[in-house]
Structure formats: structure tokens, C-alpha cells
């Protein structure tokens, strides 16, 4: 079986982003970029499926500019077999990315498409579900466990108020939540080996992907900053503040 993992290049999760002084957007010039943490979990899960003998091939794909090759190499170093980069001009809105990925799914015919449940930059949490719709596939979001039995993907999901297990006929789309696995680190030999693994560049325009602009960013503001309040010395002092000053009790 073949697993396709769609990944995103995003800001390094350890970096606190700042709003540009003119309020036009956040400052990304010179900021360290990384593989989105949830995408890392998706790559890890695909590699584990291969290690368990369920999958034979792991293909990793991203949509965007050529700089994203860096993140594809990371995925290859973690254990993916080959990589695809669909170069797409214009705004990388989820629906446009999903349209590009639909072409890749048509070409690759995977048995499973894995996504991170969200990216830590725009936090849209849309692309996997949109691809599932466009490609006519069933979906399970927020996966915390994944297995395969009798032609179905069995997915445990973290839902509001508890857990749910669903069975999806293959092929299917699954988006990965935090507790699905703990991603490994790439070893130095694996990083060296990844440089020789195939990475194919695809021209999005040549693939005939019709992108549209659906939204316009009007501006970005920093959030309202909270400042540290007061230190109380005892539980009684805390309760009296909450009753008298804050009025929340």
C-alpha cells in the first residue's frame, strides 16, 4: 500500500512571531522555519505503517515555493521514500492547496492520505477535509490511533467530550492529532541519505490547477497584552480579592 503525506513549511514552533510595525502582516523575514509539528506526526505515522508492514511506500508532498524543499528533505530523513513539491504561485489558501493536492492524489493513487490536523501558523485546519471532499474520499480528523483491517482504516479520534472510533473504506484521508505518536529524530546518516532520495518538482500551473483568491488579509494586530497582577499571600486573601475586587465569586 502507498501512503501519501501532505506537509507544510511553517514557522519554527519555538519562535514567538511578531506583528510588523505597519500592521500589514506578521514578520517572517529571517525567521527560522520548520516542518509543521502536526505534519511531523503525520510523517512519523506513515513511517510506522511501513515499519509494521502495512505500507510499502511513503510519499511526502507539499505545495508552495521552492524553499519548502528543506522540509521535504526533513521528511525524507525521517524515513519517507520520495518527495513531491507542487510549485504554486499566488496565495496559499487552503482550498487552492487542496486543489493542487487533488491532482497529486489522482496521479499517485494512494491508499491513505495523511495530514496534520492543523498548521501552527494560520491554524486553518481545513486542507485535509477539503482534499477529502474534492477527491471524493471519506475522512477522519483528529486521529489518536490508526490501524488497518479488512480493507478499512480504523481511526480513533479525539472529539469534543470524548473519543470516537470510525472505520473508513480505503482510500481515505486522516488528519493527525498530538497524541497519535511521538515523532523520532532524524539520525545524521539518515540526513545524509535523504539528500540522495528523489525529490520531484511539479509546476502547478502546468498541472492546470485553477487557483482563486477567496480572502484578502486587511491587516494584523497584536493581541491585547495582559500584565502581571498582584501576588497574594494566602488562600483567604485570594478569596477576598475574588469576592470584593474582582467580583467573580
Amino acid at each position, binding site marked *: 500500500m502507498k501512503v501519501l503525506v501532505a506537509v507544510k513549511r511553517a514557522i519554527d514552533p519555538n519562535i514567538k512571531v511578531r*506583528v510588523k510595525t505597519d500592521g500589514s502582516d506578521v514578520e517572517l523575514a529571517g525567521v527560522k522555519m520548520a516542518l509543521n509539528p502536526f505534519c511531523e506526526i503525520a510523517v512519523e505515522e506513515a513511517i510506522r505503517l511501513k515499519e509494521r508492514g502495512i505500507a510499502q511506500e511513503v510519499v511526502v508532498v507539499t505545495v508552495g515555493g521552492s524553499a519548502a524543499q528543506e522540509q521535504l528533505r526533513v521528511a525524507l530523513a525521517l524515513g519517507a521514500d520520495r518527495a513531491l513539491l507542487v510549485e504554486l504561485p499566488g496565495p496559499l489558501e487552503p482550498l487552492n492547496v487542496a486543489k493542487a493536492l487533488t491532482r497529486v492524489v489522482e496521479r499517485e493513487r494512494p491508499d491513505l492520505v495523511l495530514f496534520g490536523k492543523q498548521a501552527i501558523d494560520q491554524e486553518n485546519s481545513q486542507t485535509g477535509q477539503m482534499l477529502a471532499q474534492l477527491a471524493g474520499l*471519506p475522512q477522519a480528523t483528529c486521529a489518536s490511533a490508526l490501524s488497518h483491517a479488512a480493507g478499512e482504516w480504523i481511526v480513533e479520534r479525539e472529539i469534543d467530550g470524548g473519543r470516537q472510533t470510525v472505520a473508513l473504506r480505503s482510500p481515505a484521508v486522516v488528519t493527525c492529532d498530538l497524541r497519535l505518536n511521538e515523532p523520532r529524530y532524524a539520525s545524521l546518516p539518515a540526513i545524509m541519505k535523504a539528500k540522495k532520495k528523489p525529490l520531484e518538482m511539479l509546476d502547478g500551473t502546468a498541472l492546470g490547477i485553477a487557483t482563486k483568491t477567496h480572502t484578502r488579509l486587511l491587516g*494584523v494586530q497584536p493581541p491585547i497584552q495582559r500584565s*502581571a497582577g498582584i501576588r497574594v499571600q494566602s488562600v483567604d486573601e485570594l478569596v477576598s480579592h475574588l469576592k470584593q475586587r474582582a467580583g467573580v465569586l
Partner: protein
Amino acid sequence: MATLILAEQHQGQLKAGTANVVMAARELAQPIELLLIGPGAAAAAEQAAALVGVDRVLVVETAAPCAPESQAELIAGLAGRQPGQLLAEASVQGRSVLPRVAALLDVGMIAEVIGIDSPTVFRRPIYAGNAIARIESLDEVQVLTIRASAFAPAEQGEPPCPIVRLEQALLPTASRVVSEVLSTSARPELGSARVVVSGGRGLGSRENFALVERVADRLGGAVGASRAAVDAGFAGNDLQVGQTGKHVAPDLYVAVGISGAIQHLAGMSGSKIIVAINQDAEAPITQVADYTLVADLFQALPDLERAL
């Protein structure tokens, strides 16, 4: 023009966050239709019909749980009739279904809306809440998920609006629900509770976490947890507050033994009053807390329970 809300219910009980989504919809100043799908939809319709601002409740009662695939087809059929807005709570279900609807309608989707500036201009947090983006929709139909904690709940009013039962044959799908385990709790829903008491790694064990639950119960509040506490097995995954869990903005948020990682702050920094109870006087949570008590948690929590 009309606004359609995809509402959620479980076993005939309307999800509390629905009232907050209705309040957001009211800002769009269009007739509001509210759609309920699945087993129990008809029973929940009565509660939905009493929410002030709702003009019509549409009900699709089904025998089995309805997969996101078939829900999306149904909603797109209803929402695609005319320009307007389609809303759902930014819950796991809303985030699962609405992107499919947007793809079907070939429109963009704006997720986690916390403010409505006009019928086509919205505010939403990005980068773990470190920036708030103002976004204009250029489509004819706006598909939005609403962060419930950013809007007040719509009142329960009277008389109830009309309830219309739709006879829709849902297409069979390639997915099915095998099982569902939902925590049954008498406590209020985390996303819309007035008081939230959350515990972190500092509690040390699942048994100790009960100290947090007892304080929450004294206050009639909901229980939350940091990611560290959930990962350590102290609390269920559905209690996680933060960037990737629930977003809360209660009147009172009590963080017990929570250091205050940026991802946690993203989920609760909109709270009106924040209390930090921590052994570490330098924990980042103290930088955003209105009141900080540096104390031994295992003394402070029982003391607090008694003092309330």
C-alpha cells in the same frame, strides 16, 4: 440573503456553544436558520427554537450518526441556494464538516472567527494567538467557524420559532462510526463555562487531579487541563485547554500547577480574571495572571475548597 447555522446536539441535547454561535450570527443581521442533523435532532430542535434570533429550525432526524461526507452534501444543498453565510462552532465537528462544504461550494473558509466587523470582514487569531488577523471574504457565500468563547450566548426566549422537518435521504458513505465513548459529566461545558479550574503537570497524578475537580465543583465550574496533564494521563483529552485543545474565556480561570506555555496561554488568555496557583513563583503563567498565589498545591487546594 440568509444565515444558516450548522448546530450540534448529542442524544437530543443541544450543545451549549450553539447559543454563542447564534449571537455571532445576529451580528450579520440576516434571517437565521439553524440546522440540526442526526439521531436526536428533533428533540434538540425545541431548545434551538427558543434561542432569541433564530427564525427557523431545520431538522434532519436520522437513525444512525451522520458522516461528515453526507452532512457536507446536505448543507451545501441548503447553503448554496443563495448568497449568505454558513456558520458552525469551531468544534471538532464544525471543523470536520465545514471545510468539506466550502470545497463543495468552491468558496474559501474563515476559521475560528472571534470578531465580526462587517458581513464580509472578520477577525481571527493566528500564530497561537500572537496576532489577530482581519480578513475579508471575497466570495458570495461566507463559510465561518465561530470560536464560541468569543461571543456571549444568545438568550432563551419565547415564543419558539417554527421547526421544519426535512425529509432528506442521506447517501451511504465510505465511513461508519464503530464506537463512541463520551465522558458523562454534570459539570458545565468547558467552552462556555463561566468558571474554569484547570490543572497541570504540577498535580503529579490522576488521584491528585481530583483536588482540582473538587474546587471546580465548589464553584460550579468546568474542569480543564494543560497538555502536559493530559499527556501524563491525569485528565481526559477532551479537557485540554490551549492552541490545539479548547479555547475558553470564562469570567474566572484558575490555573493550578500550570507553568503557562505559550500554547496553553493561546487557549485561555481571553479570560476575564486569571488566577495562578503555583509552586514556582517565576512560572510564565504569573505574567498574565491577575492574582498569583505561590503555595504548595496540596495545601492550597483543600484550603480553597473550604474557603469557597
